[in-house]
C-alpha cells in the first residue's frame, strides 16, 4: 500500500463515492449547528419537504448572538438576535437534534462544546457552518467550515461534495520558551505563510513543540489554520488526546472504547508520505506575538516595531498603508508602546480553562490599569463553572475584569459586546479584520497571558517582563 498522510487516511475512510474527475461524496460524522448560519438551511429543508438525515449526529448550540451578561436569562432584547435564537430552538426541537440551549450549563461556543462533550473524536469528519471548525482538527479529525447551502446539504444527506485538498506539513521543532504559547505558534506560522499560504491545503502540525501541547493548546493551533487559508488543520491523536477524551459524555465506553482506540492508533502520517508543501519552524525562535494590522498575517514579535508599508511588495504595500491608517499607527513605533483601552479574553481560540488559568496567573495580585475596560468570556458554561471552582473568577474580578457568561461575544461583536470607533483592543480571538470587533474598532491579537499583561500596563506588553518572580502589587 502506498504511504498515506493522516488526511489521506481520514478521507479514504469517509469516501461514499468518487467521480472520475475526483469530485467526491464524503460522509460526515458530526455536524455542528449554530444560530447564525443555519436558519436559511432549515428553511430550505422545509420548503423541499426534506428531513434531517441523521439528527443523532447533529449538535446545535447558540453562541454567536447570545448576550454574555447575566440578565440574558430574562430574555434577549435585540429583536433580530432573539428571532435567530428562537429559530434555532424551533429547528433543534422539531428535528430532534442534540441541543444545548442558552439555559443549559453546557451551552457555549460550538467549537468548545463539541470537544468538551466528547462529540469530537479522532478520525471523524466534522463540519459546521463556521470557519473555525478547524479547531476540532486538534483531535485528528478532519474538520472544516462550510457555507449555509452546504449546511443544508449535510442536514439532508449527511454527506458533502468535496474535492481533495493538498497535503501541507507544518513542523515545529524543539521546545517553547517561557511566556510563549500555542497562540504564538499559530500566529508565527501565519506570519510565515501569509493568510493565503495554506489555500487549497490541509495542514498537519507536527514536531516536538506540538506534541508537548495540551489538547487546549492544540485546539488553539488548529483553530487558526483557517487564518492561514488552509481548509483544515490536523494533529495526529496520541496519549494526550485519548486521555482528554476518556470519560466524556459522548466518548465511546467499554468494548467500543477499545475498538475505537485500536483504530485511532493507526491515525498518523506514514513516514514516507508525500507532502505538497513543508514548513519548519524552531520553537526556540518563536517569541510572544502581537498583530499590528488588519489581517492575521500582520504579525510580529512583541519586541518589534510597526513596519513601514514600503518594506512590503506587491499589493501588500497598499494593504499595509490602509491597515496603518485604519489602526491609527505610525511606522516605526515600538509595538510595546501602543496603548490600548479594552481587553477581551475569550473566543474559540482562547476561551478554554487553560487559557483562563494562564491569564489569571499573570493577574494574580495585580490590577487592571485605570480606565481600561477588561472582560473575560469563558468559552462554555462548564469552563465558567470550573474557573469559579478553581478561584480564577475571583482573581479576574479582583483585578478589575468583568466575568461574563459563555458565548462568542466580542470576538465578532454580534451581541452587545462591541468596540466603539477608534477603540483599541488587546484580544485573544482570531481575527483583526476592519470592523470585526465593532465598526472602527482596532484589534491586536495575542495570547491570553499577553492580553492579561496588556490589561495591567495599559499597553501592548511583553508578558515575559511580568513573569519575573517579583509579583508584589504596585
Amino acid at each position, binding site marked *: 500500500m502506498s504511504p498515506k498522510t493522516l488526511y489521506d487516511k481520514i478521507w479514504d475512510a469517509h469516501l*461514499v463515492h468518487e467521480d472520475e474527475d475526483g469530485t467526491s461524496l464524503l460522509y460526515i460524522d458530526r455536524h455542528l449547528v449554530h444560530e447564525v448560519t443555519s436558519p436559511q438551511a432549515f428553511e430550505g429543508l422545509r420548503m423541499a419537504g426534506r428531513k434531517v438525515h441523521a439528527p443523532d449526529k447533529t449538535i446545535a448550540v447558540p453562541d454567536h448572538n447570545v448576550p454574555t451578561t447575566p440578565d440574558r436569562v430574562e430574555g434577549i432584547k435585540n429583536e433580530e438576535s432573539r428571532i435567530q435564537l428562537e429559530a434555532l430552538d424551533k429547528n433543534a426541537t422539531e428535528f430532534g437534534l442534540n441541543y444545548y440551549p442558552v439555559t443549559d450549563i453546557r451551552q457555549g461556543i460550538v467549537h468548545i462544546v463539541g470537544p468538551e462533550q466528547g462529540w469530537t473524536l479522532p478520525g471523524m469528519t466534522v463540519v459546521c457552518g463556521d470557519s473555525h471548525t478547524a479547531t476540532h482538527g486538534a483531535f485528528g479529525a478532519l474538520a472544516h467550515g462550510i457555507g449555509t447551502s452546504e449546511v443544508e446539504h449535510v442536514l439532508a444527506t449527511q454527506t458533502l461534495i468535496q474535492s481533495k485538498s493538498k497535503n501541507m506539513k507544518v513542523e515545529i521543532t524543539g521546545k517553547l520558551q517561557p511566556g510563549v504559547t500555542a497562540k504564538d505558534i499559530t500566529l508565527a506560522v501565519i506570519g510565515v505563510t501569509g493568510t493565503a499560504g495554506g489555500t487549497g491545503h490541509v495542514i498537519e502540525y507536527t514536531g516536538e513543540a506540538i506534541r508537548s501541547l495540551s489538547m487546549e493548546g492544540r485546539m488553539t493551533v488548529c483553530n487558526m489554520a483557517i487564518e492561514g487559508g488552509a481548509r483544515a488543520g490536523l494533529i495526529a491523536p496520541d496519549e494526550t488526546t485519548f486521555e482528554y477524551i476518556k470519560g466524556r459524555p459522548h466518548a465511546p465506553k467499554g468494548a467500543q472504547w477499545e475498538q475505537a482506540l485500536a483504530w485511532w492508533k493507526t491515525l498518523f502520517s506514514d513516514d514516507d508520505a508525500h507532502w505538497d508543501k513543508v514548513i519548519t519552524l524552531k520553537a526556540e525562535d518563536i517569541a510572544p506575538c502581537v498583530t499590528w494590522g488588519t489581517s492575521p498575517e500582520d504579525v510580529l514579535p512583541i519586541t518589534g516595531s510597526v513596519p513601514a508599508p514600503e518594506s512590503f511588495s506587491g499589493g501588500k504595500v497598499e494593504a499595509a498603508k490602509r491597515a496603518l491608517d485604519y489602526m491609527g499607527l505610525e511606522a516605526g513605533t515600538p509595538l510595546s508602546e501602543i496603548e490600548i483601552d479594552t481587553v477581551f479574553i475569550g473566543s474559540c481560540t482562547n476561551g478554554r480553562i487553560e487559557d483562563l488559568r494562564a491569564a489569571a496567573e499573570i493577574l494574580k495580585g495585580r490590577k487592571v490599569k485605570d480606565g481600561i475596560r477588561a472582560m473575560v468570556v469563558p468559552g462554555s458554561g462548564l469552563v465558567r463553572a470550573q474557573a469559579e471552582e478553581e478561584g480564577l473568577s475571583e482573581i479576574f474580578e479582583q483585578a478589575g475584569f468583568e466575568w461574563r457568561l459563555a458565548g462568542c461575544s466580542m470576538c465578532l461583536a454580534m451581541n452587545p459586546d462591541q468596540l466603539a470607533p477608534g477603540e483599541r483592543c488587546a484580544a485573544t480571538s482570531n481575527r483583526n479584520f476592519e470592523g470585526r470587533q465593532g465598526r472602527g474598532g482596532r484589534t491586536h491579537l495575542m495570547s491570553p497571558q499577553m492580553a492579561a499583561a496588556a490589561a495591567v500596563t495599559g499597553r501592548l506588553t511583553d508578558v515575559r517582563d511580568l513573569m519575573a518572580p517579583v509579583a508584589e502589587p504596585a
Partner: protein
Amino acid sequence: MEKFEKLTGVAAPLPVINVDTDMIIPKQFLKTIKREGLGVNLFDEMRYDDNGNEVPDFVLNKPQYRNAEILVAGDNFGCGSSREHAPWAIKDFGIRCIIAPSYADIFYNNCFKNGILPIIMPQEEVDALMKDAEKGSNARITVDLETQTVTSSDGEVFKFEMDPFRKHCLLEGLDDIGLTMNRSDEIASFESRAATERPWV
C-alpha cells in the same frame, strides 16, 4: 439554483487584496433568517460613513458602477468567515461574476451554490481587466462560461480554467442536494459498513 451561462456587463474595479467577509458583509447584517435583501449592505463599512451616508469615492457608489454585474478584485478574495451572507449580498446587489487571482476556499465554494461565477486568473490578466474596468460604464466585459473566456471591452480574449463538475452544475443550474439524494443507496451502504467498522461514531 439560477444558471450561469454568459454575461455582458459593467465590471467594477476593487484593487484591494485580502478582501475579507467582514468587509463584504459586516456581522450586524448576519442576524437575518433570510437569504435576500443583503445587497444594500454589501461592503457596508466602505460604502457608507458613520452616519449612514454614501461614501462618494467608493466604487459601487459611483454612477458608472451602480449597476455593475462583474467585480474585478485582488488576491485572496473572500477570506475570513464561512458566512454565505457574503455571496448572498453580492448576488443581491446584482453581481454575478468575480474575477480575481485567488479566493479563500469556503467563499469560493459558496459562490457556486448561489449561481455566482468566481473566475481565477493570473495577476497580469486581472491587472489588464482591472484597467479595463476602470474605464467605467462604457467598458462592458463579456464572460462566457461555456467557452471559459472573458472578453475585455476592446475585444481581448482571456481563457480561464474551471473544474468540469462545477461548470456543469452552474451551466445547468443544478441543485446539489437533489444530485446527492440520487445516491441514497450508496450512502445507506456506507452507513451500514461504518456501523460495524466504527460503531462508536
